[in-house]
């Protein structure tokens, strides 16, 4: 802490500019991301290890988070699952947000019938109930990681597109874009230099929310049996496969649920404080 104060590096200054809850959120998020990266090295057991633990065992020294419905070590399952919950959601959200933003940019700059057609297509994807889309996608292509990522991406892209397009439309009508047009700038310059940098901020905020929804979406896919393939499991699948332990209050259900909750809350606290920071910044 004092270190950061003494050397006001970029990261340190950024951290200090956040509200307390924002800092807590950031720490939680970073913690989980580290777990997602290094989880497999920390985990005491591997994904395919059947330890001879009790079924739905309590918290013990040997099994710090208890054991699951097949007697496997839950700590390892949660550590290994972080990679799927966070990684999948992250990739999917990145895809969704990037594609949505780029498409919105292209369609705004091109305009005309192209914009109209793309917007209708996105609208139809948006109004299609998302789980149905997922169901169809997984039924057609089977459930593999790429399909899951693609499914989640396709599900959330129309939303990102919609937001990005309304942003881009607003920006496209800004006077500084007009200035660029008056100076006979190319469409590419206008899109990449005038519009894009100014919509990054709202898209980032949107990105955070979408990420959380993706984590939850993966868990509800696992409810429909369409999620990550065993023996791997994302946190949602962990909750799902151990759900029968709920009536006895087995830690196997609660631990992954707590993991999802902390990640969600952490990420959102962080995002909220980003938005608040921006508001303050705009005021001064």
């Amino acid at each position: 802490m004092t270190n950061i104060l003494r050397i006001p590096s970029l990261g340190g200054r950024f951290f200090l500019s956040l509200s307390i809850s924002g800092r807590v959120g950031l720490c939680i998020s970073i913690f989980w991301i580290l777990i997602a990266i290094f989880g497999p090295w920390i985990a005491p057991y591997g994904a395919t290890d059947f330890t001879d633990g009790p079924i739905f065992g309590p918290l013990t020294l040997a099994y710090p988070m208890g054991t699951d419905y097949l007697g496997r070590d839950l700590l390892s399952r949660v550590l290994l699952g972080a990679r799927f919950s966070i990684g999948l959601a992250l990739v999917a959200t990145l895809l969704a947000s990037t594609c949505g933003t780029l498409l919105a940019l292209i369609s705004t700059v091109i305009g005309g019938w192209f914009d109209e057609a793309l917007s209708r297509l996105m609208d139809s994807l948006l109004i299609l109930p998302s789980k149905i889309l997922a169901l169809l996608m997984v039924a057609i292509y089977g459930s593999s990681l790429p399909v899951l990522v693609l499914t989640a991406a396709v599900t959330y892209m129309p939303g990102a597109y919609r937001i990005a397009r309304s942003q881009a439309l607003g920006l496209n009508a800004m006077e500084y874009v007009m200035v660029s047009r008056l100076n006979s700038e190319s469409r590419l310059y206008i899109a990449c230099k005038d519009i894009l940098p100014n919509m990054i901020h709202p898209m980032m905020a949107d990105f955070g929310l979408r990420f959380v929804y993706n984590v939850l979406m993966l868990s509800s896919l696992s409810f429909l049996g369409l999620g990550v393939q065993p023996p791997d499991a994302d946190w949602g699948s962990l909750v799902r496969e151990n759900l029968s332990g709920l009536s006895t209050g087995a830690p196997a259900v609660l631990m992954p649920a707590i993991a999802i909750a902390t990640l969600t809350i952490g990420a959102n606290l962080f995002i909220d404080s980003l938005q608040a920071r921006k508001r303050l910044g705009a005021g001064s």
Partner: protein
Amino acid sequence: QETPKKGGHVKIAVQNSSVSDTLDPAKGAHSADWTKQFCLFNALTEFNASMVPDLALAERLESSDGSKWLITLKKGIHFHDGSELTSADVVYSLARHKEPATASKAIAIANGFADIKALSKYEVSLTLSKPDFDLPSVLGSSYFLIVKEGVTDFSKPVGTGPYVLETFVAGNKFSAKRNPNYWKNGLPHLDSVEIFGVTDSAARVNAVLAGDVDICALVETRYAKQVESSNNVSLVVNKLPLYTDLILRQDHAVAGNKDFVAAVRYMQDRKRMLDSVMQGYGAIANDHPVAPWDPYFLEGLPQRPFDLDKAKFHVQKSGLAGSSMDIICQPGIAASVEGAQFLQGFGAKVGFNFKVRQVPVDGYWSTYWTKYPMTYGSISNRPNVGMIFDLFYRSTSSTNEAQWKEPKLDQLLDSARAEGDFNKRKAIYGDMQTLVHENSGTIIPVFTAILDGVSKKIRGYVPNPSGMNMGYRVAEAIWRA
């Protein structure tokens, strides 16, 4: 044994609910359909508690050679609409399966009915193209429930059964009230029954625990403890010859390798599967499809052990060590996902690389089942052992799961069916069990027990080995305390 009480209403939650739910016996696809159908219809025979077909609508069922059968009906049995049951109804009920337009699930069996004709008002002659002394048990299956002659619309069917249909909405609701003129004396006990499909297994269990329904069919083993510890509900264990099998395609280079098959067999930790996945409910199987409580079960065949050393030996011998293979499983098949994971874990120890591929329930049977070298099958109970062998092991069967072609087995099956003497027949079926145990491409680790959650207010619920829900005839047998 307490004396049954009359009256009352019972709600039963069964597993399936879909718009494809049907009351047409030819199309019934699962225990939920069958349980409803047995409320409305009767078959010519009915299974008793030791899995032997007793006579029901039929008064006599006779054959000397196993091919030519004479069916004599009981007299004075009436349909719900008041008309009397005659031979014409029986002829229609059996013959309609042969029409492709009926889209009957029993078309393969019915194609074996060479000739069906009415001899008199109460007599029907049935000629089989091949002798089969197990015909009485075939006729006890739901497909051959007796419907009224000429009926094609099964949205509001009438039968001779214990209940008269009140409402039926596919995927939603089935309710029926007592048939006052039921031909079995004193039955049924209840005034009315209601059967819901509740697909989510947790929801079904919770419904019976919360008292919303009286009977919950098919409690998943993982909820068994919860039900057992309840004060209001008792857990009933049904022993049925149901099993999940791992299918190794014998026409595939790797999966068909004899040593590979042997290795996989030794890698089955049957005890652990029974104890952890099935929480102890079920029975260890010996890689053949006949359950220990079946009349045809062969005693004395040594149980195959869980032996990773032998597995390792066979893997080495097969020359496949280090190679890899996908196991296709799906959550809808009991214990398949866990079984595959166990195999993956043990495979790592013996030097074979299994990959678990969990696929959607949806589309599994047309897309994955037997189409890949290693898939899981789920075999539900059939009226008799011969039918299982016929469907899943006969060389010419289109559903020969592992494509294991063994002329000797075909031969044995035909001779068993043509054998009129039970003990001799049992001996032949015994030989077939040994054959399958040793050579086939299917691996049957355990038999799955079916658990039911039954409210303590319900009496008379006795399991029947011929099928779930007391051989689907739960509604006519139970009463309220």
